[in-house]
């Protein structure tokens, strides 16, 4: 084992870490949980993670832009309250759309704070989180609201044809749509450019601030959809929904290989991150492992992955940007790795 070979292994580990961690989680889960790999259990664990996954889709874009959005949980709560609370005055389906619209509006508020007022996104979305959460408590007087028809929401939480639930399907569809947008469209690539270097993106004629604003509005819309769907499924809107969901969603996105510094993201990676956390939760709940142990394990996985990422990528500063721009589009960027190896053998 020479250093070059070790380096290759490290590269492979980092590149496919989502797959690796997912495989490990699934193997552990299938040992612990009888019939874990059956359709029923897999569908259940996907369903458990679907709401968080919808948030993660929006966060992937925000994180790609190098920003943060902490307000997702509050938006989720207020959208759900809107979708449930307006049911008896305007009907169920229009109310659901208004709920999503509330999410879009909240995203626009974030975009206004970050892009126009130039407030750091961490603080701006913290402020809007407090503001929206307060608003949710205010309009409901801190009481949960119930919908008119408990059976209406079954459409999103009941397995279609005994396989996959409506919201899981929606989550998968948005993930693949995001993947296609990231990899096959000009605007998706512009988004990567804005995230990697906003100054040079602007200089190259990309409307960076529009993209930045768009990422927050998209994230707000996804949080709105997640809120409407999760509230419909339990026929309740509550101002305390989604208190800790954003941090989990950020963890899922980061496990999926997206960097908080921006410029690198992968839709399929996010899918992997969400599935990992979903499988982990399901497996541990089957084993009666308390929630706090799950927290420790999730934290350790997160820590391990970012450390691995940091250690390997910091030694190859050039490779990271290359991977960010090209590597995610076509699976293995072998040439660069080969030149690395040649360098090593020349030295010997």
């Amino acid at each position: 084992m020479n250093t070059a070979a070790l380096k290759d292994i490290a590269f492979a580990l980092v590149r496919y870490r989502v797959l690796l961690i997912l495989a490990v989680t699934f193997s552990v889960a299938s040992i612990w949980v009888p019939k874990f790999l059956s359709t029923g259990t897999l569908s259940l664990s996907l369903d458990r993670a679907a709401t968080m996954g919808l948030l993660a889709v929006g966060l992937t874009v925000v994180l790609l832009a190098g920003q943060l959005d902490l307000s997702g949980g509050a938006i989720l709560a207020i959208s759900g309250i809107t979708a449930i609370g307006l049911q008896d005055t305007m009907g169920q389906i229009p109310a659901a759309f208004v709920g999503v619209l509330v999410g879009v509006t909240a995203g626009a508020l974030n975009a206004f704070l970050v892009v126009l007022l130039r407030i750091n996104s961490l603080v701006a979305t913290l402020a809007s989180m407090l503001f929206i959460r307060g608003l949710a408590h205010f309009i409901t007087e801190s009481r949960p609201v119930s919908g008119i028809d408990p059976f209406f929401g079954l459409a999103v939480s009941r397995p279609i044809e005994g396989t996959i639930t409506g919201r899981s399907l929606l989550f998968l569809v948005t993930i693949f749509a995001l993947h296609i947008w990231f990899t096959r469209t000009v605007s998706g690539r512009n988004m990567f450019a804005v995230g990697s270097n906003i100054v040079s993106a602007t200089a190259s004629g990309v409307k960076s601030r529009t993209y930045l604003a768009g990422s927050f509005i998209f994230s707000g819309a996804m949080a709105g959809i997640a809120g409407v769907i999760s509230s419909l499924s339990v026929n309740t809107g509550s101002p305390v929904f989604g208190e800790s969901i954003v941090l989990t969603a950020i963890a899922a996105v980061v496990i999926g290989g997206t960097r908080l510094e921006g410029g690198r993201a992968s839709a399929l990676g996010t899918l992997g991150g969400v599935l990992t956390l979903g499988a982990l939760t399901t497996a541990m709940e089957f084993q009666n492992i308390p929630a706090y142990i799950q927290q420790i394990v999730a934290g350790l996985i997160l820590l391990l992955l970012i450390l691995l990422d940091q250690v390997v990528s910091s030694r190859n500063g050039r490779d990271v940007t290359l991977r960010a721009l090209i590597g995610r589009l076509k699976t293995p960027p072998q040439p660069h790795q080969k030149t690395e190896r040649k360098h090593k053998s020349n030295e010997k």
Partner: protein
Amino acid sequence: MTKVKPSGSGMAPRVVVQSRRSNLGGWIGLPAGVLLLVVVGTLLSDKFLSISNLTNVLISMSIVGLIVVGMTFVFISRGLADLSVPATVGIGGILVLGLQPSLGSLIAGIVGVLAASVAGLVNGVLIGWFKVNPVIATLAVGSIVLGAAQAFVGGVIVYGTDSETQDLINSRILGGIPVIVIIFLTVALLGHILLSRTAIGRYTYAVGSNPSASEASAAPVKFTRAFAFLLTGALGGFAGVILGLSLQTARPIMGIGYEFDAITAVVVGGVSLLGGVGSIPRAMGGLLFVQLLTNIMVLQGVPSPVQGIAKGAMIAGAVALDVYLRRRGGAQ
């Protein structure tokens, strides 16, 4: 580390010069805001300007005030924010009450602070040496530490039995000053001295205003970054210990919300998230402003949700003003 002493004595100019205008605005704006609140509060309620009410304000800002001291270091050194505060507060409170029967309150308290400091140290090493984004590092460490704290007690509420220490902490000395306030003011004063009169304080400003220049000037950039998080971890643990001892009850989630309260205070105080600017007195001014505003709203019977709305609007307003006062060449 001890080689570079802060040059000059007394009120030497800060490392950052370009923000003098905003410093001026901050120095005038905040006391004026606090004064305005006092006037408004006095006009609105005759209970406001009483010793007992103002003492209550001081008590309620003491616990979060301890964390604000650490968070100020994090902000000034451009470390974004420490989101592991709920975990360090939680582990401090749980360890002091959990170990109290076997070790006694004092030793248990020290163990609590040390455990939280270890969490802060891990944060610091990850952020300083491994250059991990502070948000994600403190998030992961916080998740692990909070889980560990819950595992330690089996996820339940811990009750303390040491009513003597409880009475001591909740008592008032020197003509009615609560002990908890004295602890807070002492820590704030020590933090102020550390930040304004020592080498590590100087480095904190230097690293926050220009990391590359600090690196080139052989300032210990990594250590300084790490130190801010170590300090916040230790103070979070200390806040948890004090909170646990004064209530003799500790829940794992007791620290949730303190991170946002501390960030709010620091931001309202005009300490910039971009680093390099701010001071402990300003952060304390921000804390006082938030607490007075909350107190006035409580006295007026404003429902607590509206207080949340006001807090959110206040953060956005304060930072927007800060950014407006000094546009750093379009820096985000």
